[in-house]
């Protein structure tokens, strides 16, 4: 292994990592509220909305993520929607992530006793209040573990952005390896960085679960 061969590409790798971090945060931050809205729409919304959302979610879940990204990146311009690779990748990843995540969230809500909502309504509590104070606190501990598993899958999934010209960590590692013929170093480095991102999420999950346990002494 020749360090002088590798050193010039380390800044590239770092900037790729930064793009990956941005993509990850952006995808998670945008997909979460959308997924929540989809889950609520499907479980509590009017029938036609629930149906339309179900079709959309299941269609997206049937497709490889790469095809969804191609739709946005290559198909978009055909509809007059020309966008930067980063934008296209974010849209595609958010669409994918939100579809899967909405299922995770619905799973948490479906474990809730229907009687809880009935009790809130019988007391005259506004829906928003019932959601915030009664339904979410009970659903959250059930949602957090699958949500975090999904978040980690989504972070790994950002690597697909490299297939639509985004210079993310995977793209930079690939490029550096094929130029230098040192795939071990670069793939290993990239792998470690991805694992570090997952590690951050796992730590976050532990913190959230502890926080929820303390905040709502769920005695079940």
């Amino acid at each position, binding site marked *: 292994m020749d360090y002088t061969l590798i050193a010039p590409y380390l800044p590239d790798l770092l900037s790729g990592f930064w793009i990956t971090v941005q993509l990850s945060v952006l995808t998670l931050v945008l997909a979460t509220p959308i997924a929540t809205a989809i889950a609520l729409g499907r479980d509590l919304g009017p029938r036609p909305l629930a149906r339309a959302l179900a079709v959309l979610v299941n269609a997206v879940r049937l497709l490889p993520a790469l095809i969804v990204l191609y739709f946005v990146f290559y198909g978009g311009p055909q509809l007059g929607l020309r966008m930067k690779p980063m934008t296209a990748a974010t849209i595609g990843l958010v669409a994918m992530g939100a579809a899967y995540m909405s299922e995770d969230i619905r799973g948490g809500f479906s474990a809730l006793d229907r009687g*809880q909502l009935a*009790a809130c309504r*019988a007391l*005259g*509590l*506004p829906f928003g209040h019932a959601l915030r104070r009664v339904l979410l606190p009970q659903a959250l501990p059930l949602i957090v573990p699958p949500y975090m598993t999904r978040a980690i899958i989504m972070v790994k999934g950002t690597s697909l952005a490299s297939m639509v010209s985004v210079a993310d960590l995977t793209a930079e590692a690939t490029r550096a390896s094929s130029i230098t013929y040192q795939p071990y170093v670069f793939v290993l480095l990239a792998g470690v960085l991805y694992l570090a991102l997952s590690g951050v999420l796992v730590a976050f999950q532990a913190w959230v679960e502890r926080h929820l346990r303390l905040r709502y*002494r*769920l*005695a079940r």
Partner: protein
Amino acid sequence: MPSPFVSASNLRKTYGDFTALDGVSLSMDRGEVVAVIGASGSGKSTLLRCINYLDPPDSGEVRVDGVRIGYGEGAREDRALPERDIRRQRAEIGMVFQHFNLFPHFTVLQNLIEAPMAVRGLSRAEATERARDLLNRVGLSGREGAFPAELSGGQQQRVAIARALCMKPRLMLFDEPTSALDPELVGEVIAVMRSLAEEGMTMLVVTHEMDFAAQTASRVAFFDAGKIVETGPPAQVLRSPQHPRTQAFLQRILRSH
């Protein structure tokens, strides 16, 4: 003749092809306790849910103290109200469920004060004072810091009754409040309901407790296939039922006890 305190007229409710309420009419005077009996699936719960518009009836009307539930007052009586206003009307009607439906992540006290603060705008101090009074009345003072899962079923149901009363309702609906309880815990809940009746609360109680129906109710209504087929004083409906379905139902109940 004064109009009744509660009147449900000609309520109809269908789920798909299935008719759950097939033209039900029922009126209650202020302070009256009406027991509703009938086989499971006959539509008793549906009637309660239609009365407080948890599930609006397809047709028919419900009035409590002259006000039509789900609709405007006076000149605006033909206008359906938005959910926000129905909610305000619903807050006047307390409901107690078979499975208590207490909020498991709240303490007993939090269960009681949540709605008075959020819906009635009470301060925490006011709500807490009211809640303590009620917990005392249902025999649970001192348990306000407990979580529902730490209580017995009978205690949970008494908390649920106190939670409903904390809104100062004018009418109380009970949906089989003792059906989910172990037999030895039924008595404590019935006792609370009895004292509530003695204080003059207007109560509509779906129940299989024939003792409660016989001793506390002023009237018994027998439900069958979405209809009230027989109604009258307990002595009459329970001892000498006229309708063959009532006779069959009561016989089955007697045999199982």
